């Protein structure tokens, strides 16, 4: 299979997963839509969508936006309630969520720089080249370090959930599934990185990619068809991400998207009161 076909397979799979994800989230939103909407203290009976848009825009262009932002930063991003209550729990949650989000942003930026700026618009400055080249020290270090923090967070969560077992935690199939998918996702990321080195060749300085680089050197003597192995390893990595994404709207993991919104909205209500 040539590179072009592999890339096509990936993009088709990606498009299907995203479409299903959007449909599933849409079903959730349609359930919320059954609820009553209030504008200026009055229940909206007709033209709910128009009212919702008005409410959102009024919120954005008022001082309530800053209240929401404050609640978002302190309670959603930094999770101050958890910090005050249980440091270990906070550390696990923050390591996982903040690093996951940072890695997501990094990937989004890299994709934008590579596909948008570099390939389509032809921008080729040293900065753009630094961002799109996964082998540059800063990009290699950022990717690798954020991944390690995610692993650390996940290990703390597993330790708390299955070893410390706080009384109030109930480990359901849903929780276990999400943890297993996250583990597969994170643990396959390093071999994928090593296989990329084996496929494309090792950079001159590799210590920034401290784990993937060393693993690659360790695997090198096997002398396999690294192009094919990398593709299939990547597909397993992508498969776990896809499974997580598709499972997300039906599991408690949907809170990743909804909780920050609720925290911000209720934060405004609390401050206003």
């Amino acid at each position, binding site marked *: 299979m040539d590179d072009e076909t592999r890339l096509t397979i990936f993009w088709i799979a990606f498009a299907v997963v995203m479409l299903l994800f959007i449909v599933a989230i849409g079903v959730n939103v349609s*359930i*919320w839509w059954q*609820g009553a*909407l209030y504008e200026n203290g009055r229940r909206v009976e007709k033209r709910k969508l128009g009212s919702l848009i008005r409410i959102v825009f009024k919120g954005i262009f008022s001082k309530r936006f800053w209240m929401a932002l404050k609640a978002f930063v302190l309670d959603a991003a930094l999770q101050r309630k958890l910090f005050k209550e249980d440091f270990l729990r906070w550390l696990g949650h923050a390591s996982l969520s903040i690093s996951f989000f940072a890695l997501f942003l990094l990937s989004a930026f890299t994709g934008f720089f590579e596909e948008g700026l570099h390939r389509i618009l032809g921008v080729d400055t040293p900065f753009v080249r630094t961002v799109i080249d996964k082998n540059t020290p800063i990009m290699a270090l950022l990717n690798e370090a954020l991944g390690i923090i995610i692993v650390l967070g996940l290990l703390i969560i597993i330790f708390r959930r299955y070893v410390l077992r706080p009384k*109030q935690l109930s480990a359901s199939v849903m929780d276990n599934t999400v943890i297993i998918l996250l583990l597969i996702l994170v643990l396959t990321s390093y071999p994928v990185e090593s296989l990329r080195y084996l496929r494309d060749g090792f950079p001159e300085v590799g210590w920034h990619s401290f784990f993937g680089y060393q693993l690659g050197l360790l695997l090198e003597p096997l002398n396999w068809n690294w192009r094919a192995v990398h593709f299939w390893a990547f597909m397993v990595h992508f498969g776990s991400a896809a499974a997580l994404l598709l499972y997300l709207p039906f599991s408690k993991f949907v809170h990743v998207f909804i909780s920050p919104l*609720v925290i911000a909205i209720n934060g405004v209500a*609390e401050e206003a009161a």
Partner: protein
Amino acid sequence: MVKKMDLSVYSFRQLMELDACTRCGNCVTWCPTYAEKANDNITPRGKIERLKRLTRAQYGLLARLFGPREISEAEMKDFSQGVFDCTLCGRCKVVCPVNIDTRPLWIAMRDQLVDEGHYPELLNMLKEQVTTHYNISGDPNENRLIWADNLPQPPEGIHKKQAEVVYFVGCVSSFYPLTYTVPQAFVSIMERSGVDFMTMGGEEWCCGFPMMIAGMGENTRELVRHNVEAVRKTGAKMLVATCPSCYHTFRHEYPHILGEPLGFEVLHSTEALAEWIGEGRIQLGAFDRPVTYHDPCDLGRTSGIYDAPRAVIGSIPGVTFVEMKDNREYALCCGGGGDVEMADSSLSAAVAKTRLAQVQATGAEVLLSACQQCKRQLTAATRREKMRVKVMDVTELVESVMVK
């Protein structure tokens, strides 16, 4: 044809909140009723989980593809039991890491269950009494001032028709003898400190709070309109309530229900007392017994008043004040809230017993509160447990040490 649940009793935001729950279980460790009755239906997490399951069965992806599933009687009974065994204390909101506004969500669940006919039968009696007698006890409403009958010299204000301040006594203090001492003390304080006050007697109707929290809020509009009109007619500038639930309803619910400002100020008695003490209208003598204070849920967590009662207690010379382990926004419920007594009276008593253990740990001889329902509930519990602690309302203590 499958009958679908009507989700419009919930707000858009409340249905979002169901998806925001992380099932972390923080609420479980703080839930006062779950601590006494280890049934997952009762926990905030359990209630959210159940409602989510019901909504998914009728509106989720599978329901969209293959049609909604009928909700069985057993499922609704299960859901209803958890929802009505809640004291609505709101402690779950305080500890929720994602800030779910739990109390209004539990009330919306009750609204839904009442609409669908799954609620404790005793609530029908409550509805009947409130809508026909205008009070929760079912006594003739013109007997609202019966608590004043055995006052040696009833203050003049009790029967006034116009005054600066309207004292809204509330159903519990008006009709339950164990709490008559609360209005008796409060009118005595007002008279002695020269406050121009009046009561409304039979013109005072139930504020509607017990119905609102029972999920029968639809039936309270008449009560709301009547009460506001009755106060407006007196020309009073201020309404003071010794009952935190009446206070909360007047102050926070009425303007929302009417869609307009009330036209008079609403204060809780502890706020008024703190103000009058600050102005020097009330002079207090010494009190040398150790006291502790129980934050009523509807005054503290629901209305945000924690400092006024503590300021009043702190202004009594010589008082030794000891906080309980769970205080302010973390205060444990007395068990008397949420109409739980009607759903499960033994559960309500068990919660009170746990609170008394916290009182005992402080070494206090006097347990103060600022709610007649907490007083009634905790007094009954001290009697059952044969505990040597005197339960008093803050107004009663102030009246007993007042020198001017």
